[in-house]
């Protein structure tokens, strides 16, 4: 009865959606509200919007966030530079379902704990960005992938659970925008370390990748940016989302592989 969740991720810069490669800005996708409208018309399961312009330009305009929420008849998560309960409260007021907290959590802050008391765990996403280092170990980074923290994603996932997060997004920095498949080892290690729902992000290329990370590796949902924003051999900008029959085929195939 439970449906697999496939979640498009849009990166917000001002009023635009952009896409990054390994966390460096790379391409302009289009107007963010327009992009969200298209995902809405394709009945996407959920949408994640992360404000990546916040560090250089300040917090995004409330009217952009309100407009986004108005267009989404699906759950909408928003993140990027959130560092206070007051900011979180304003976002919920604007119609955001979930807020995604990264730097204010991974650097040791207690924002998730404070916000969970006020808004409930289900609305709080702990977002963890990590890289596979030269020695094969995984390390968490903050501030848009610029500051190494010397902590593993597994340890960070446990802290997220202790603080009362409702969900974890584990993102591979080195696979961002690369379309080489998820870092399945990293995702699986986080899934095994927590009972919280884990959303995989970074590297997805095909609908099969989405289905397999859930069915084979235990993720609660599969998120992606590039594969929902670009299309074809030339990777032209085209907002897309798998149709029901494509989903079913991929799920059936993944189940087959999982039991094989």
């Amino acid at each position, binding site marked *: 009865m439970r449906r697999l969740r496939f979640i498009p991720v849009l990166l917000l810069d001002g009023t635009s959606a952009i896409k990054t490669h390994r966390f460096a800005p790379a391409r302009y996708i289009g107007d963010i509200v327009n992009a969200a409208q298209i995902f809405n018309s394709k009945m996407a399961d959920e949408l994640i919007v992360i404000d990546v312009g916040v560090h250089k330009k300040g917090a995004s305009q409330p009217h952009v966030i309100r407009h986004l929420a108005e267009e989404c008849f699906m759950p909408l998560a928003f993140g990027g530079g959130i560092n206070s309960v007051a900011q979180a409260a304003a976002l919920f007021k604007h119609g955001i379902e979930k807020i995604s907290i990264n730097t204010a959590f991974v650097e040791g802050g207690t924002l998730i704990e404070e916000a969970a008391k006020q808004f409930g765990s*289900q609305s709080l996403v702990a977002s963890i960005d990590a890289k596979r280092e030269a020695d094969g170990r995984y390390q968490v980074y903050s501030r848009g992938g610029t500051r190494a923290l010397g902590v593993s994603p597994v340890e960070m996932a446990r802290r997220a659970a202790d603080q009362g997060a409702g969900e974890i997004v584990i993102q591979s920095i080195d696979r961002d925008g690369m379309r080489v498949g998820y870092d399945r080892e990293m995702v699986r290690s986080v899934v095994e370390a927590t009972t919280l729902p884990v959303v995989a992000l970074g590297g997805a290329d095909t609908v099969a990748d989405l289905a397999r990370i859930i069915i084979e590796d235990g993720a609660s949902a599969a998120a992606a940016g590039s594969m929902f924003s670009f299309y074809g051999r030339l990777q032209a900008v085209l907002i897309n989302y798998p149709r029901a029959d494509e989903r079913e085929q991929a799920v059936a195939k993944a189940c087959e592989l999982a039991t094989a």
Partner: protein
Amino acid sequence: MHESSEKSGRPDIDSAGHIGIIDYGICNVGSVRNMLRRSGALATCISSPDELADFDRIILPGVGHFQAGMANLANGGWIEPIRHIALVEKKRILGICLGMQLLAHHSEEGDCEGLGLLDMDVKHFDRSRLSAELPIPHMGWSEVDAVGAHPLTHSEQAEKQRFYFVHSLHVSLRSDGVQPLFWCNYGYPFIAGCARDNIMGMQFHPEKSHMFGVELLTNFARM
């Protein structure tokens, strides 16, 4: 974008009157209003109990902690006015998510009394009945089974109805005076929607459930 089936046509909606959405400072009321407006219904967010008189249908939305929800209702002076319009004036009232749970007598979340409008209690998911891979909260899209005949559950969609859920607790009926409308299964079957006469509740979020939610809210606007 979702102008849909003939049954959500404007003439019906216009005669249905105006829906008041209670804004008691706990959650986003904008998305409920937006979906109703997209469905062609008149909807307004109200932030004072005095305004309840202007509407013949009321929606009580809500997310978050039960105790915080009741505290906000109490602080805003909503509790008696809501009970009055539901029990005496018999206006149609629809609770959504936490709003549904608040209609109950009691919740385990914060061991707290509710509005007591539906003969039911709110209980945590029974972890012992859930297999280990099912996390709490239950978060995501789930299909539901509509039971019995009720105008709210009517659907003309080709696919089975599915809705978006985010919750750690669910209602449990005390008596058969309350009619289950939707069953959902998460480890075990729980009631995803129920009603008694003019008082109705839905555990899921219709305002975040694409055309399935548009249809349900349109049904509420028309009934």
